[in-house]
């Protein structure tokens, strides 16, 4: 059996008096696109946050290689976000004050890459996702689909091991959503990046190799991994 890239076991997360997760376990395999579906409020976003190291679970463990993300400190988890992981949310992940180019270059700039080098990679990824023409615009000046493609470029610019996408097409019409999903899946497959894709939309989940469904804070079903991840 393939060793998972990230494995969550028995995650519990409480917000106030509500339990977002009540013992959720999930494996994200290297190079696969895994869809996590479920009704709203089922805890799928919280599961993604925990596996991406954005939020620390109250109980349970998240393994990334030999590392325990649930125990890693704030700095280590921040560093991982600009080296090994990328995130794409429904909205809000771009800095409204920065141009698309600066936004994409941001993880590199934060890691101390020179401005010229960071902008060069950022430009390459913007072109790759067809939004190089928007490089000088700020998120408020772009269409939703363009903004999400800029967010994709940002998630991919560090050549991450995994991209965490939480309803990346949630605010888009279906054609713009199709473009974003196609771009994401193609780019991920080409670079061997795993994608954890949270969505409530089966048509979006159909871009993934496998599906896991979440209900009431636990993973209800998880497709068996294919013998080998195709393509």
């Amino acid at each position, binding site marked *: 059996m393939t060793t998972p890239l990230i494995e969550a076991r028995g995650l519990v997360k409480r*917000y*106030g008096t509500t339990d977002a997760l009540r013992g959720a376990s999930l494996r994200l395999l290297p190079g696969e696109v895994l869809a996590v579906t479920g009704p709203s409020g089922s805890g799928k976003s919280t599961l993604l*946050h925990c596996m991406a190291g*954005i*939020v620390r679970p109250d109980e349970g463990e998240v393994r990334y290689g030999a590392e325990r993300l649930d125990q890693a400190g*704030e*700095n280590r988890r*921040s*560093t*991982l*976000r*600009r*080296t090994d992981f990328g*995130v794409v*949310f429904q909205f*809000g*992940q*771009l*800095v*409204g*004050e*920065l*141009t698309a180019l*600066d*936004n994409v270059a*941001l*993880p590199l*700039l*934060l*890691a*101390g890459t020179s*401005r010229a080098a960071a902008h060069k990679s950022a430009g390459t990824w913007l072109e790759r996702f067809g939004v190089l023409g928007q490089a000088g615009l*700020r998120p408020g000046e772009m269409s939703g689909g363009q903004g999400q493609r800029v967010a994709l470029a*940002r998630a991919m610019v560090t050549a991450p091991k995994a991209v965490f996408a939480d309803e990346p097409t949630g605010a888009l019409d279906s054609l713009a959503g199709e473009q974003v999903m196609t771009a994401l899946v193609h780019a991920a497959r080409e670079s061997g990046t795993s994608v954890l894709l949270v969505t409530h939309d089966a048509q979006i989940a159909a871009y993934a190799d496998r599906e896991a469904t979440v209900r009431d804070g636990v993973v209800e079903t998880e497709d068996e991994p294919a013998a080998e991840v195709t393509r």
Partner: protein
Amino acid sequence: MSALRSDALLAWAMLRGSPRSERWRLALTGLGAALGTGFALAAAVVAVIGTRYGGGPPSYTNGLLNEGGLRPGVITALLLLIVPVLAFVGQCTRIGALQRERRFAALRLAGATPRQVRRIGALETAAACGVGSLAGLTGFLALRLVLHAGQQAGGGDGGPQQRALTWPTDVPVPWAAFLAVVLGLPLLATLEAWFTLRRAATDPLGAAVRRRRPRRFRRVRLLPGPLALLAATGLLLMAMSRKLGPDTPFFAATGLVLPLYLFGLLTSSAGMAAAMGRLASRSGRPALMIAGKRLRADPWAASRAHTAVMLAALIGVGYLTVRRVALDALRAEPEHHPDLAFYVGGYNLAGLALLIGVAVTISGLAVSVAESLTARRRTLAALAAAGTPRKVLRRAVLLETALPLAPAIVLSAACGLAVTGPFLVARAWSARPLLEAALLAGGLLAASLLATAASLPLLRYSVHPAQLRYE
């Protein structure tokens, strides 16, 4: 160092793309820094008068500058003027707070460590305050030149040295002290920002995702305020009942009573706002109800905005009473006090300083109302969309200031009178200080309402239906 450089570049890139509110915040912060720098520089100049850096024996028309024993008082007054400036800057930092929190969250999500975010935020403050401080320095030097030129021109044939000057422009610029002020003030502000950003910079999911629960107003928190006020009054009465000579009780009492009153006022302001809110929200009139509900929902906002005004009322009334009683006493026996003009001049100068402080305070209030109008635009737009007439909303905004502020000012003024009570009673009793205190309280309230009204044009933008669209 390179990390600092790249952070600075990022901060600059963000500043260039920042919305208007952010620019306002930085501009007003800079203005505050400029004002504070000005006061500190003036204090530095007064500090060197009469020393070996001070360019000769002091000879000015204002006695406060001539007497070596009085100059520390002048310096203290100038430095105290920085307090309302700080309150003003504090109000300004709340402008666009939500937007800023969102920006920091986005940075964290992109992999910035909490430290990096704090550094970027502190750098913004450092830049704004640095520019403000430099502007303050330039302004001060320019003013000095202008005053100097004016005094030279007015000096006539006698030569400037023989004639008493109004302004100490003959004092050489104490560059070392100036440098310390111009560098130190932004440094302090930056350190302050570094510490206050500690909480803001932690959550990568930010305000959008985090479930925000309004801080619950706990009744226990209502206790310390009135208790402190009661204790202070008790102490005061005790001090007055024991007649230990004319001066001892007064000074002993003020040393303890004034801080107690200050503490009591500051801690009871939120409770008062909540109480007024409860009263108002029971009324059937829409404007009162809206204002009342809002006060009940967040009494801390009102208390934050009104603290400085309460302080102004307390200190202002105290000052007026002392001044009135002291001057009346002097005027009663003119033969023993040939230097009456000197005292009058001194009190007037202190009054001027107080007036400047009040002006800064009221500006801070205007900023806080403007900030609250823009921050709450979704709520206001929803109220307008649901059919609330704009007139009612305007009235509600005014009431939101007036309801908690009126009793707060009255209470503060009463405390001011109480602190100076022993002094009043020891001398001949008269009703004039009471009248003056009432006038001051009324004036402060009127000025506060004017400042609130000045922010009302913003309401037009805040109630626009476009504010209801999903952000």
